[in-house]
């Protein structure tokens, strides 16, 4: 676990950001419900959730590759080509 702690941190960031995303979504849901008075999540809210999820997925990938570049850099730096059958 000594040299893989960053993957645990990465998973924790993913989990925590999902929770923050849901919290933001709850604010959005409460806000939109003030206008239509509906207790149900409407199509707009579902679409917002999908957009937020895609945004999260892109951000997570960016974080993984950029924030942990110091570690992943060991892998992504071109050193020697190794091909397999």
């Amino acid at each position, binding site marked *: 676990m000594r040299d893989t702690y960053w993957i645990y941190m990465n*998973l924790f960031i993913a989990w925590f950001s999902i929770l923050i995303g849901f919290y933001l979504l709850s604010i959005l849901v409460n806000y939109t419900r003030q206008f239509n008075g509906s207790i149900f*999540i409407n199509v707009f809210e579902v679409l917002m959730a999908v957009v937020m999820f895609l945004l999260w997925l892109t951000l997570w990938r960016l974080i993984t*590759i950029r924030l942990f570049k110091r570690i992943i850099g*060991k892998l*992504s730096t*071109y050193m020697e080509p190794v*091909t*397999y059958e």
Partner: protein
Amino acid sequence: MLIINALVVFAISFLTTLISIPRIALFMNGKGIIGIDVHKPNKPNVPEMVGVSMLIGFFTSLVFLFLTIPELSNTCLAILASIAIASLVGLLDDFRDLSPLCKVLLATLSGIPIIFLRAYNPRPMIPFIGRVRLTIAYPLAIPLALSVTSNAMNMSDPVNGAMSGSASIILASLTVAYALTGKYSASLVGLALLGATLAFYFYNRYPARVFSGNVGSFAVGAAIGSFVVTSGLEVVGVIAMLPQILNSYMILSTGGGFKGKKAITVRPTRPLENGLIEAVKDQRAPLTLVRMILAGSAKHESEIANEFLALTLFSSILSLVTALILQPGG
């Protein structure tokens, strides 16, 4: 009564799988259905597609629940049908080597029984929000969800015991999560599935005596997916499967998308002569979870498998925390 049912259903699933593994392994050996364990220095031959034994465990225990607990009959039937369809896709992949896009599309079919049997509740519980009503969006998302879980488990079988061990941890955490939220009947279904994966893990862990094959990994993925969709706690399921889902996403996004193995010109890892496995230092290689685990140093296969399981355990603990955060009765 609940505890007795729990013990019986777990025992049925565990024992039928455990008993059938050697027999199916012998059958596969006889038919020449064997795979090469590429991470071992001596490259031993190992019986392939023995994941069929997990199907036997799933089916016997779910049929037992179907017959003994009427309130679970529809759920069990839907899960059984989903597993059957997903395992057929896996079987096809074992013999025909399907393209990733084809696997993703075919695996969506395993969600259809759940929709037709209406074995779902379109009111998932979301943290901070509570119950939301998704009458239209939810059934549309079911095939996609099943495809994601099936393919994620299929792509998370890189070393001995990684798939069966991580599936056991995920199912155990889900079973506990359902018990924590008062859904005891769902916990019984979880135990029915857990028994089979746990029994298979004893044979599949390092050094593997059997391989599950795509038939096994697809069945396990569909089992987890259909279990979560029919029983609720969707977000908890996603959190528990984070390492597998993110591993699949990273492979697809850094390894040529849906183009398949042919698009990957450089393998992510390579075995060394001293028995260790190291990450390939080439930017063209896909960024897999195993490659990330090996970023610091070369490791033994058993260490990689343990790290894989530890990561799944970590996300499973996070999923249990999420289950506690969920607003009851929201």
